[in-house]
């Protein structure tokens, strides 16, 4: 089954997020209060290694499993959407303690109330589609 590798990758991701407590509402509160290094350590390590990996992939022009050159898309250069969208996202992240990945990992962990957060997130996504032409990007 071709999709199995994605399920397994997701499974590993879910275990990482749960075991490192990145899916914890308490840990997110601790982060936004700057009271522990834990979450900064996780994100910082991922970014430092990520920057290195992406630079190496570009330098050696590495190919993916299908033999295509791995390419990276530049984000468009306007800034409003990133700042305003990011701020709205941050409000929700601090309130629910969950960004989109952890919402789903938490459901698997047994926090079924997170289903309500996911429903909210789907409504929010739809609302953005509804009014996006009226927003500054």
């Amino acid at each position, binding site marked *: 089954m071709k999709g199995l590798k994605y*399920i397994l990758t997701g499974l590993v991701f879910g275990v990482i997020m*749960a075991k490192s407590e990145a899916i914890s509402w308490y840990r997110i509160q601790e982060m936004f209060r700057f009271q522990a290094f834990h979450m900064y350590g996780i994100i910082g390590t991922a970014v430092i290694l990520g920057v290195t990996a992406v630079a190496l992939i570009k330098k050696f022009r590495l190919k993916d499993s299908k033999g295509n050159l791995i390419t990276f898309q530049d984000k468009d250069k306007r800034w409003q959407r990133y700042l305003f969208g990011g701020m709205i996202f941050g409000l929700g992240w601090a*309130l*629910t303690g969950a960004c989109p990945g952890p919402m789903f990992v938490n459901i698997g962990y047994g926090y079924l109330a997170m289903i309500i957060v996911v429903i909210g997130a789907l409504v929010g996504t739809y609302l953005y589609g509804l009014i996006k032409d009226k927003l500054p990007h």
Partner: protein
Amino acid sequence: MLELLRQPWPWYISGAAIAFIMVLLLFFGKSFGVSANLSTMCTIAGAGKRLELFNFDWKTEKWNLLFLFGSVLGGVVASTLFQNNEPLRLSAATIEDLKRLGIVFDGELNPSQLFGAEVMTSPKGILVLLIGGALVGFGARYAGGCTSGHAISGLSNMQLPSLIAVIGFFIGGMVMTHLLLPLLF
């Protein structure tokens, strides 16, 4: 080995593992970004007939849905096979701050006050979760990505827009934490 996996994982293991997931997906020819799944779910529900944003062939995003399904399974594995019963080691300062908000630290991953079964019978509790989720979903699509797409994939590719988005995440998060939570709880 199992005993080791059951311990809470240190930040450097977790950070390295997240970078590995991102790189693995790149070698599969894909890009790590979880919030795109929320759009795909809207598309599957038929939103593409009404709104152009959701008018795409969801099958191109099937891989990401499978990844998301896997991450739910990962949560199941973490809470069963890799379960440990020690309380979360939250900093004393955070425990104290939350106590002042009236939120009790119960040693679990998430406070039962906000995510326990009793929330289902509290209109305020449900509303908090719904509105919080809506802000995450709206903000992620507006910003063109969430923590995985911007903070991990975007910053790894040294994208200035992703840095702006991450700064936005923190402005919003701090406004909620320091200004709005005391009003809500």
